[in-house]
């Protein structure tokens, strides 16, 4: 019988059926960070348990690290306590830690792929909902809670229920100025922030076939924003080329066998799906959010919706969103004043994001009064970007060039909005308070649109600012 990638990976990792009907699934690769792991290690100690396979857990520090000071102790004593706790836990249990001094630290979802730890046909778990990112390699990757982090540490398994699979096809060629970020924002807008509950999203079609590995990561990253805990793309040569030569990728003598194995995990051509949704790339424009969840999105040249014209179920949230965002219904969002521009995060903090934006901001200047920051997703990204001269381009244009971390994606480090500030952000969540100020406002968009906002001081169409045709 023909199978999806999810079927094949699930079968290969099933340990047994548990008494309540759940599957005990082996988690081949476990990634941890400082926020959701300390309590899990505490639980292990309370239960007198060890880490079963310490060599299959990898740690980094990302959420709480300041991006403008690297000296320890950090000025925030709580952040300092958290990095020290992770260090002590990794030491005690024998876990590899991509710590700050290693030069390989970064956001967990950027470090895994960059190190070649993320591989096709594997299962991955991490105490972070954006773990779906790793699905871009044809892995089945779950965001998990802290008790499950404990479960994986102690048993390398979790109790899980197999999701249904929705195939999402995007075919055709994206227009100039339209990026992977626009594709996923568009998908979430159309299918809803809860449309993916109970599903894994399998992304495919010619648009995905032509995407780079990093573009696929951007899309898979935000699967959870559409309610799908898991999102993936079938592995192909693009995936294998990306992995070749990376530190934890199979070495030369094992390479061909690994590629053959990886290829075999891809969904069979005649696989059947629980649901199929089709999009045309040509129908997608630069997409930005106007509200307080990632599904509240419009094309840049559309007007902010009028709640009365929305389906009844969406009206209350829309009203709440308009109040929070201080936006007028029925009016263009273009021209809205921007206070902060944030380029970074596990969604769009990769080298290709920085390279693409640098091409356009070279020789231009950030608008007076706008705070614009660029936060590379990892020290690895940062090092290459500096060598390529990208850091200099950004600095010359008036952006602050920061150290690697989650930064302004969430309010756990000193990079926060203040008061009602409005942020043009390349991150993944526009929830109320997400960027550190309870009244702060987030507008999600592609990196190029963030750059256009930084340069003009307002929400604007990057295609016009940069003459992209």
């Amino acid at each position, binding site marked *: 019988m023909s199978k999806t990638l999810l079927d094949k990976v699930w079968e290969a*990792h099933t340990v047994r059926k548990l008494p309540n009907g*759940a599957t005990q699934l082996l988690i081949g690769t476990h990634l941890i960070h400082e926020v959701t792991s300390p309590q899990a290690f505490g639980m292990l100690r309370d239960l007198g348990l060890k880490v079963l396979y310490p060599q299959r857990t990898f740690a980094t520090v990302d959420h709480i690290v300041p991006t403008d000071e690297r000296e320890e102790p950090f000025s925030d004593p709580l952040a300092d306590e958290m990095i020290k706790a992770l260090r002590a836990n990794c030491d005690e249990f024998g876990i590899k830690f991509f710590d700050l001094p290693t030069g390989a630290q970064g956001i967990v979802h950027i470090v895994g792929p960059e190190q070649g730890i993320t591989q096709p046909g594997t299962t991955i778990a991490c105490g972070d909902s954006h773990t779906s990112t790793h699905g871009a390699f044809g892995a089945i990757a779950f965001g998990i*809670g*802290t008790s499950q982090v404990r479960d994986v540490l102690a048993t390398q398994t979790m109790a899980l229920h197999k999701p249904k699979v929705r195939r999402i096809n995007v075919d055709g060629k994206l227009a100039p100025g339209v990026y992977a970020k626009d594709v996923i924002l568009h998908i979430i807008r159309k299918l809803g922030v809860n449309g993916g509950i109970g599903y894994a999203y399998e992304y495919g079609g010619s648009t995905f076939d032509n995407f780079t590995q990093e573009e696929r990561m951007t899309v898979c990253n935000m699967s959870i924003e559409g309610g799908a805990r898991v999102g993936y793309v079938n592995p192909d040569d693009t995936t294998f080329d990306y992995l070749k030569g990376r530190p934890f990728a199979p070495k030369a003598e*094992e390479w061909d066998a690994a590629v053959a194995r990886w290829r075999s995990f891809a969904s069979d051509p005649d696989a059947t799906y629980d649901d199929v949704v089709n999009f045309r790339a040509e129908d997608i424009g630069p997409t930005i959010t106007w509200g307080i969840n990632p599904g509240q999105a419009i094309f840049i040249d559309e007007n902010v919706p009028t709640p009365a014209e929305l389906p009844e179920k969406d009206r209350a949230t829309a009203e709440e969103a308009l109040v929070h965002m201080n936006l007028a219904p029925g009016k263009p969002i273009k021209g809205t004043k921007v206070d902060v521009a944030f380029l970074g995060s596990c969604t769009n903090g990769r080298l290709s994001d920085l390279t693409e934006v640098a091409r356009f901001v070279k020789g231009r200047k950030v608008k007076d009064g706008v705070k614009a920051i660029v936060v590379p997703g990892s020290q690895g990204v940062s090092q290459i970007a500096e060598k390529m001269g990208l850091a200099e381009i950004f600095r010359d244009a008036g952006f602050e060039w920061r150290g690697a971390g989650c930064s302004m994606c969430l309010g756990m480090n000193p990079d926060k909005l203040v008061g009602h500030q409005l942020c043009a952000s390349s991150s993944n969540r526009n929830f109320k308070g997400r960027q550190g100020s309870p009244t702060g406002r987030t507008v999600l968009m592609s990196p190029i649109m963030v750059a256009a906002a930084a340069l003009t001081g307002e929400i604007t169409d990057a295609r016009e600012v940069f003459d992209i045709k």
Partner: protein
Amino acid sequence: MALEKITQVTGRGVYVPGEDIDTDRIIPARFMKCITFDGLGEFAFYDERKAADGSLKPHPLNEERYVGAKFLLSGSNFGCGSSREHAPQALYRYGFRAVIAESFAEIFFGNSITLGMPCAVMAHDDIQALAGLIESDPAILITLDLLEGKVTAADMDFPATLPPHAKEALVQGKWDAIADLLESVDEIKNVASGLAYFKAA
């Protein structure tokens, strides 16, 4: 490690209206700078309840008449967003023992069950009716009966469901999976040894 068999929850309730209530609202990220879950209860819905100057905003959890509620009622897609277990931990430590909503985000749902906090799905109109009962008499006792699949309040009852696996886990006292998972270490090693990438490590 014997866990309580959770077949029924009884207590008072509070209705927090809204769709897509996300985990950043349930527990703002700045309160996750901690290495234990102790004390998270007081930060549940913090920014919804308090203004920047510490003054109280209008919010059901700030109303004296709902203090001590064990049931939290809300709209659809409750708990969307981050995987932070801090969210259900904060609700549990605040004093909630069950959540009733039209639907739940998946990771939040799993995290809650693991704590022994049932998340039951009720129809929109039924939640409105139950919220109406609570509004008119906040002291009214609500009972969630997992075996019967219903919620009772005053002389009314409403269908209230959990997926079969979650219901079984709660009523059998197996809502924390760790004991079951630990039983099969030999099988785990067996499956692991068959995976090329696992062996190579």
